[in-house]
């Protein structure tokens, strides 16, 4: 029998109902797991065991009824760029060390309304900029499958926590792949919803037209449950969509009969690791066996997505991060005699190199004389990318391909080469530009390291990509594998959970 910390939300909910366990017991078990693993993994930046236990106690009785809210008593980790009231929100940055938001993000309110227990705030690349969680000012998180490797980023903390059983569910954020890529590296399910599906109110902004909060879980059904709890229009977010939230989990199906899947040709070009390509192609065959009609499709402007992204995202970020200047909150440099020094030295001391790089890149792209050549041009490329997807979705119900070009790389491997780091996002970024939903589901192992299959859907058709992922998952066993606990041999394939 699996340890409590490794069960799915659905299973826990069933056990609660039957009185076999309680939220308090689960939180206790979870914190034991955290104690055992987190010194090594460093997934969490902030934990409050007493608060979590107090919250759990509130739900102990209610969950036995069977009519408790959908996530009652379920432990959830939050990426540390999501504002909470009773814990700090640092965004992995020194410039917000100790910052306590006086308000909480809408998703947090919804989670608490659904009965979830917020376990803690999890590590991330500073201000969600990076692809490995190595840009956190508070040290990197390690991949539970191999602690010499990165968990991916920027949602490395919450993803590693879920993979290692340090949380049942987690919320991350995805601007260019920051949920999907770590999900692929850590062998769990991670989803970026359609832009506007989930409220951004309380998500510390990186790139406003690209950011979305999304679920991270060990099964597709769990991800669906979590998405249901947080999705839906929020009057506090003008970009959130007034589109009905279906009962995603209830409507999951295991048959792909009649579904048309497009295999994105450009995602299998040069740069894709052979092992990863093999695993993904096998996964596509499995989908075919499940009844899907699979055919190649082209997104002709796909190779321009990454350069466009690395203009648009930094441009918006340069504006979104201007507020961190030592005036009203966060870190302030000492002894600044004038304003310009206050701002410039605070930001020099408070920001890491990647953030500085992107701020400068973004400022440059927006500055007089360059706006049209860079920013405006990138927005026009974005139109072409959007049109490519529209054309593809005229013939297909969902698109498939790899999530990342490689499996998890080693800590320190790409840290000194920004451009190399950026290339990890090559298959994920196009969806953010087009605002479309995408999910990463475990589809194999190469050298003992997880590989993810990416499924892309039409706007607000999360159901279809959840179905594809769910059907695939249920037809395979990858999702049952757990990373080694404690100091395991590097890269050795883990045994299946008993």
């Amino acid at each position: 029998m699996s340890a409590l910390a490794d069960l799915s939300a659905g299973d826990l909910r069933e056990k609660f109902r039957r009185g076999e366990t309680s939220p308090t017991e689960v939180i206790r078990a979870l914190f034991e797991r955290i104690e055992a693993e987190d010194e090594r993994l460093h997934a969490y930046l902030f934990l409050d065991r007493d608060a979590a236990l107090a919250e759990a106690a509130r739900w102990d009785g209610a969950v036995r009824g069977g009519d408790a809210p959908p996530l009652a008593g379920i432990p959830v980790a939050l990426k540390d760029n999501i504002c909470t009231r009773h814990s700090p929100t640092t965004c992995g940055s020194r410039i917000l060390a100790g910052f306590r938001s006086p308000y909480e993000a809408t998703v947090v309110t919804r989670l608490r309304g659904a009965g979830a227990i917020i376990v803690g705030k999890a590590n991330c690349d500073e201000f969600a900029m990076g692809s490995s969680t190595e840009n956190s000012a508070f040290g990197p998180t390690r991949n539970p499958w191999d602690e010499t490797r990165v968990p991916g980023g920027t949602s490395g903390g919450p993803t590693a926590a879920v993979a290692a059983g340090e949380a049942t569910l987690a919320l991350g954020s995805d601007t260019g792949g920051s949920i999907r890529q770590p999900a692929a590296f850590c062998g769990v399910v991670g989803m970026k919803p359609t832009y506007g599906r989930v409220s951004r109110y309380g998500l510390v902004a990186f790139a406003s037209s690209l950011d979305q909060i999304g679920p991270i879980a060990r099964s597709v059904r769990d991800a669906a449950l979590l998405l249901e709890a947080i999705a839906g229009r929020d009057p506090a977010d003008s970009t959130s969509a007034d589109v009905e939230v279906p009962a995603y989990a209830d409507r999951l199906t295991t048959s792909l009969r009649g579904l048309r899947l497009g295999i994105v040709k450009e995602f299998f070009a040069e740069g894709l690791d052979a092992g990863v390509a093999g695993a993904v192609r096998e996964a596509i065959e499995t989908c075919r066996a499940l009844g899907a009609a699979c055919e190649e499709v082209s997104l002709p402007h796909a190779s321009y997505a990454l350069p466009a992204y690395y203009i648009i995202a930094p441009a918006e970020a340069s504006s979104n991060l201007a507020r961190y200047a030592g005036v009203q909150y966060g870190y302030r440099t000492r002894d600044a005699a004038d304003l310009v020094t206050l701002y410039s030295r605070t930001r020099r001391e408070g920001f890491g190199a990647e953030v500085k790089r992107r701020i400068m890149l973004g400022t440059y792209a927006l500055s007089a004389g360059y706006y049209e050549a860079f920013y405006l041009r990138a927005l026009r490329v974005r139109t072409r990318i959007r049109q490519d997807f529209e054309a593809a979705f005229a013939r297909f119900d969902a698109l498939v391909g790899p999530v990342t070009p490689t499996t998890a790389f080693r800590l320190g491997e790409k840290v000194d080469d920004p451009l190399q780091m950026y290339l990890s996002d090559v298959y994920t970024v196009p969806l953010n530009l087009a605002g479309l939903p995408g999910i990463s589901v475990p589809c194999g192992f190469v050298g003992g390291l997880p590989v993810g299959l990416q499924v892309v859907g039409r706007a607000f058709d999360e159901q279809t990509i959840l179905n594809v992922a769910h059907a695939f998952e249920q037809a395979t066993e990858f999702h049952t594998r757990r990373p080694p606990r404690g100091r395991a041999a590097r890269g050795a394939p883990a045994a299946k959970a008993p």
Partner: protein
Amino acid sequence: MSRVDAGVRHETVIGLEVHVQLNTASKMFCGCAVAFGGAPNTRTCPVCLGLPGSLPVLNRRAVDLGIRTALALGCRINPVSQFHRKNYYYPDLPKNYQISQYEYKDHPPLASGGLLRVSSGNEVVEIGIRRVHLEEDTGKLVHAEGRSLVDYNRCGTPLMEVVSEPDLHSPEEARLFLIHLRAVLQFAEVTSGRLEEGTLRCDANLSLRPAGGPHGTRTEIKNMNSLRSVERALRFEEARQRQALERGEEVVQETRHWDEDREVTFASREKEEAQDYRYFPEPDLAPLQIDAAWVDRIRAGLPELPEARRRRFVEAFGIPAHDAELLTATRAMAEFFEETARRFPKPKIISNWLIGDVAAYLNAAGREIEEIPVRPEHLAGLLVLVDTGKISGRSAKEVLEDMLRTGRPADAIVQERGLVQISDEAMLAAVVQEVIVEHPGPVGDVRAGKDQAVTFLVGQVMKKTRGRANPAMVNRLVRERLGVG
């Protein structure tokens, strides 16, 4: 209105940028109250503070008021407009960007291409309105020794910017434009529009150009906090630029601050390099699509504007056009007039008092008519007293002055100060008789045809009655008594 100097003729070219605080209940992008005063940082929320993770949501009424303004100024309302971010660092700007509307190629602002008719002396000048757009206000800075203090209460207050074409050609014209614009905005119930309170703020651009020649370099002038300072500042700047040109110097393009105390404009050193605001479309807000139906709804609810009210005053009340102009300088004044006219049936008399004694008091005291304790019913009460002869016109001026100072009604003041005019004919006749007896010389002059002597005799009666006799009645009695017309 160009100036002519010995030598080169230079024409003054002025454009105004007017920031108007809209009278909504809540702020532009959040539900914090729009109000004045109060302890610092007590009317803020995550949105107007620009806390991490906060997002703006647009106030519908601010858009309605913007449309209403556009209609009142005869502008074209652009069917699609969007918001932009204006990026710069300043402590009163929490996000270090301001959400505004930028005018750029395919990005028109809320409204453009309007007109304001300004009466200047006997002429009517048409001043173009280049654009009307919406933006959020900044916080307030208080300067102290060795530090500055920031109050974010005002952050996010809805602002509308009205930009004129550079069609103004003198500082006086600029002042008149502001008066007219303010009246339109007040009448349209879009703002309370008080320069001194800051609900109306004005920056100016001024340049000189040789008549018929190319446009000169312009400077931007800021920190003009009253109508008077606008005119004075522009006069100073106009002279400064003229002097520079006459000396053969170039005018530097820069921002200059008006110093009210020293009465000069000076260049602000803080902006060393030209500001690069890096405008880009605001991704957190959806664009505005204003269709004909929306505009029609606003048009249907448009209050009576100054021009229409002026016409009505002339036609319905028989007020001369010039007086109607003065009565509609502010909405409060126009309302005051009409309210008084409801209670006292002689509008011309009301008008004279309002644009005479009352206006003089307001100007001297630096107050607005809606602030004084004298209300329409009080003025009407006073005018009734004069009209029925109960007090003399001269006494009435004294009474009004007291009313303005103390807020007490006319009746009480008249009683207390014993100003009731004596109109008792019998009693006055007796005094007249006394005076005639005491001054045989002047009496003789009257009978000899010297009319001024009547005035002398009336004056003596007034002296005896300590100024309280009804002068018209005394005059008549004297003449009757002496048998002259």
